[in-house]
């Protein structure tokens, strides 16, 4: 074997550019053809699109459940469904929306956008990325197949023991829930690790931390939050499973297990979870506002610091979900203060976005409509949030429809509205086509009106004493009209979301072809074609400002020298993003899918017997062995002189 010198290897550069370069890169980075290629792909864009489509399907399913609940609650003493069915449905709604829609879709957006925004050819750990999708899909299937088979969890998305424990959580319903959590946590943790590594080590040269787009900052903060919060719920659901399956006593009060331990662990995850869902929304809004106001976002450092502050504060609030549990009263005040303090960074962000519009020249395209809808709704949700942070008020309002109204204002207003805006905004990047404008505006207004029609009345029903999670309510409590209004609103809301999806479907087929940068935006993701090629960028861009495409309108500087015959990435330094190393990126492979199937089988079987963990370890180990098997005779690579 002859050792090749570095000069002999094909690299991009003056010798190799244009069509020839594209052809070489295409050959190196494309996925394998056909169904096999579909199964084995490790392209972050393929995986992210898959994630997004799957999450949207779960959104639709969760939405259908919501409509079913609203139908049941449309009138008092309604006999549409019994308590057993209703309890499964509201549990499935919450679980689906939180675990199968909101978190995955936000992470999928990061998986798609972050490598493009920071100018790299692939996400780090692309096989892990593929693995995470298959695991997520297995978790979602487990939950929904179980639901169809009448084994849907009926213990609430929070699954408080002892109700979810072995004695009162009859059958396997709670096990399905707990194991589904394990699936989605594994998937989310995988992605978070990838995102953090990608952001810290793969930014385009010159993209210092201070020049990162706000959305990349958000992705970094959110991923770190996932890494720190999700283990708590994984631990908790593991405890619950072992309580249920092998008779441990973590939550058995009789043997000094503690039902409140669950609540602490769960909300230590559960509260950050809310910000994990909301913060990407803030990231979307920052990008959209800047683009359509024709100026960089106002007070970028303040916005970034606000994001980081929310990420930190999120871990100090969990007890405000537990004010009624009888913990020492004085300690509550700390959590009240911490909960209220979140309003400060949120307020900073709101101010900065409006200030960006104020000092820019806002163009109210469809994504901007969603942003304005977001600001209005989110501020209202924030108001009720501040109220709920107060112990005396929370003790009255906790677990009433007031809280239902609050968190739908925050989650739909604060996360789904920006997400839909983001879909409209990046739709050309996903598909290469523009999303229809007229239908887009119509769907926004219907969704917006439907949303408030649904959830605004719930403030009253809550204040008038209607508790959450009831499958029916008696006549004569004064809740009837308000509930009917909410039900009507829910259908308007659903119509709006449906219109959005129809618009998307139509636009994929027949939308206007967009070109690389239809909005004339500043971020690197707009520097490549729409949709981007498998290798993202022919040459790695070089960045010298926070708005590269605006500051270098005519010629974006690039660097060259990456190999084109092998998947090669440029690694840069963590702080300054100076070129550091060249690193190979893995090839497509089937093993993530096999490993995910083995892991999934193990998880599912361990609902029934603890031995599944022992037996299942064999196929999992085998799949991982093949996955990590070193390539035969790695292409020789001389050390740079």
């Amino acid at each position, binding site marked *: 074997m002859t050792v090749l010198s570095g000069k002999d290897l094909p690299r991009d550069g003056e010798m190799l550019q244009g069509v020839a370069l594209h052809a070489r890169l295409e050959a190196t980075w494309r996925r394998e053809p056909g169904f096999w290629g579909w199964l084995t792909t490790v392209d972050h864009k393929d995986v992210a699109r898959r994630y997004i489509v799957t999450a949207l399907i779960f959104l639709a399913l969760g939405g259908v459940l919501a409509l079913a609940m609203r139908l049941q609650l449309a009138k008092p003493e309604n006999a549409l469904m019994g308590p*057993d069915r209703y309890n499964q449905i509201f549990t499935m709604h919450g679980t689906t929306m939180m675990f199968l829609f909101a978190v995955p879709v936000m992470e999928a957006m990061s998986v798609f956008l972050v490598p493009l925004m920071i100018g790299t050819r692939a996400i780090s750990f692309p096989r892990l990325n593929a693995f995470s999708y298959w695991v997520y899909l297995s978790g979602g299937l487990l939950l929904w*197949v*179980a639901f169809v*088979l*009448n*084994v849907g969890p009926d213990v609430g998305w929070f699954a408080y023991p*002892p109700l979810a*424990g*072995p*004695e*009162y959580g*009859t*059958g*396997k*319903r709670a096990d399905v829930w707990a194991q589904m959590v394990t699936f989605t946590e594994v998937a989310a943790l995988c992605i978070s690790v990838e995102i953090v590594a990608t952001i810290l080590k793969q930014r385009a040269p010159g993209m210092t931390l201070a020049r990162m787009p706000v959305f990349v900052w958000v992705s970094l903060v959110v991923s770190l939050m996932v890494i720190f919060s999700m283990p708590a719920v994984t631990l908790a659901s593991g405890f619950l499973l072992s*309580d*249920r*399956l*092998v*008779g441990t*006593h973590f939550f*058995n*009060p*009789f*043997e000094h297990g503690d039902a409140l331990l669950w609540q602490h662990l769960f909300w230590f995850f559960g509260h950050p979870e809310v910000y994990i869902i909301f913060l990407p929304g803030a990231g979307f809004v920052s990008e959209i506002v800047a683009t359509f106001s024709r100026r960089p976002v106002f007070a970028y450092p303040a916005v970034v610091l606000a994001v980081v502050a929310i990420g930190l504060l999120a871990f100090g609030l969990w007890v405000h979900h537990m004010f009624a549990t009888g913990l020492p009263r004085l300690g509550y005040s700390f959590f009240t203060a911490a909960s209220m303090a979140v309003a400060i960074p949120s307020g900073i962000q709101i101010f900065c976005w409006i200030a960006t519009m104020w000092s820019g020249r806002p163009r109210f395209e469809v994504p901007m409509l969603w942003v304005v809808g977001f600001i209005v709704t989110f501020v209202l949700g924030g108001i009720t949030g501040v109220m709920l942070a107060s112990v005396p008020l929370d003790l009255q309002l906790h677990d009433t429809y007031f809280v239902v109204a609050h968190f739908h204002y925050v989650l739909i207003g604060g996360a789904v509205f920006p997400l839909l805006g983001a879909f409209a905004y990046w739709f050309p990047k996903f598909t290469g086509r523009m999303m229809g404008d007229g239908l887009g505006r119509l769907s926004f207004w219907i969704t917006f009106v439907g949303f408030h029609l649904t959830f605004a009345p719930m403030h009253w029903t809550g204040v008038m004493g209607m508790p959450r999670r009831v499958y029916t309510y008696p006549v004569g409590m004064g809740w009837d009209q308000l509930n009917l209004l909410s039900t009507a609103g829910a259908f308007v809301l659903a119509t709006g979301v449906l219109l959005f999806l129809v618009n998307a479907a139509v636009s994929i087929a027949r939308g206007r072809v967009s070109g690389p940068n239809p909005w004339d935006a500043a971020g690197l993701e707009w520097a490549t074609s729409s949709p981007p090629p498998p290798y993202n960028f022919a040459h790695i861009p070089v960045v010298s400002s926070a708005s590269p495409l605006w500051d270098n309108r005519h010629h974006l500087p690039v660097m060259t020298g990456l190999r084109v015959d092998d998947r090669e990435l440029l690694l840069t330094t963590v702080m300054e993003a100076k070129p550091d190393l060249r690193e190979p990126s893995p090839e497509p492979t089937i093993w993530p899918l096999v490993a995910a199937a083995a892991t999934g*089988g193990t998880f*599912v*079987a*361990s*609902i*029934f*017997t*603890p*031995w*599944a963990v022992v*037996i*299942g370890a064999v196929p999992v180990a085998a799949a991982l062995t093949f996955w990590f098997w070193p390539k035969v005779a790695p292409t020789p690579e001389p050390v740079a002189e």
Partner: protein
Amino acid sequence: MSSRSPNKLARIGLAGAALLALGACDREERDTSRQPKPETISLASSDPRAKEYENSSFHISQGQRYYSWMNCSGCHALAGGGGMGPPLSDDEWRYGGRMEDIVQTILKGRPNGMPAFEGRITEQQAWQLAAFVRSLSAQPRQDVLPGRSDDISNAEPQTLEERRPQQSESNTTLPSAEKD
């Protein structure tokens, strides 16, 4: 859980998903219906109602609740270990161990001390109790059984805690009036 043999468990584990798909609907049904299951009198060995109750996690959990409420646990102990009454967690059945035998035992009583519960509980409750009783000796399907109940554990006692007798002053001396 110790009664589960690895073999059996392995089988269940591998067939877990299949089981889920096959029987889940019945097993998880929260059948709160008013009527006891319809009866078919048959000379065949097993009452067809037996499976319906025994393969239902809901009925077993109801039975578990009644086991405590109807004071079964007072004689037969919480996990069926026995006491005033014979153990239920073993494979010995003085009066037959089939579901319908146990229902008969519960409803009609047995001469050596088992009281008759007919008229004190409903037939439905007796079937649910019987399903739970059989679960104590791990006879029904494993996938409908709870891992444990929220009761006292059979773990080793905690003897590490330092045990020191409590003392107070007043017991060491006689009331002053008595010191004559």
